[in-house]
């Protein structure tokens, strides 16, 4: 049996660190069906003023989700997540997800969480509920 995490108000969840490799946006495009060229076409991305291909916000949101489910003991434990996307994430730079339990409510831990890349919050004001 997998361990069910003990989370208490004030606890920090374990940090999740992940570095999307050069071709991650291509694999995620295939997996998700989102082939917006700003994610898969370097030339197109530059032509619209971006530094290059950018990460899918929903991939980064999936990393935020994974930080919660790994803290809570499994992917089935996530009950709710809401996020705001800010700025842009880039391939080949580490993404760091951190979070703090704000309260325990109805058998769920409520977690304030963010994702940063090079010190910029690319997901902020995020809140998750995981079943304990």
């Amino acid at each position, binding site marked *: 049996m997998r361990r069910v995490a003990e989370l208490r108000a004030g606890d920090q969840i374990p940090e999740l660190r992940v570095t999307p490799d050069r071709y991650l946006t291509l694999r995620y495009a*295939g*997996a998700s069906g*989102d082939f917006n060229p700003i994610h898969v076409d370097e030339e197109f991305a530059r032509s619209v003023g971006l530094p290059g291909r950018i990460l899918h916000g929903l991939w980064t949101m*999936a990393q935020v*989700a994974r930080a919660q*489910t790994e803290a809570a003991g499994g992917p089935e434990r996530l009950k*709710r997540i*809401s*996020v705001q996307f800010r700025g842009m994430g880039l391939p080949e730079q580490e993404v760091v997800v951190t979070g703090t339990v704000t309260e325990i409510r109805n058998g769920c831990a409520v977690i304030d969480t963010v994702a940063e890349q090079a010190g910029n919050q690319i997901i902020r004001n995020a809140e998750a509920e995981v079943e304990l």
Partner: protein
Amino acid sequence: MPVKTTAIGKSYDPVVYAVGREKVGEYARAVGEASPLCLDVEAARAAGYPDVLAPPMFAVVYCAPAVGPLIFDPEIGINFAMMVHAGQEFVWDRPVVAGDEITTTASVKDISERDGRAFYVFESVSENQRGERVCTATWTNIVRGA
């Protein structure tokens, strides 16, 4: 130009998505989900699921065919080139496993304008083949220069 709000409340035809075992695995690997519940059918069955468990954010995959068309609906009138995905919420009610057929219905929850930006808020409700709700999602897109 004022933002068109006539589409508020508009609901779209439901779209059915059949969840496949290999698609769940492909998605799980793309997002770094390593749980055997998502990758190993025997592990999933040992834990009481009929097949591999979709990672929660797999909701993106089964909702997309229902929600995507709203971005291009002329009645809503989004300027796609200026659109930014600004916010997202998912609420999950029960697990989704390979073999499920998920029916998602999208609607326009709100359209508003402030500070020269248009806010388009879409909602999607997803149910499994037994009519049980599995996920409710709120999608917020902002268009600058509205």
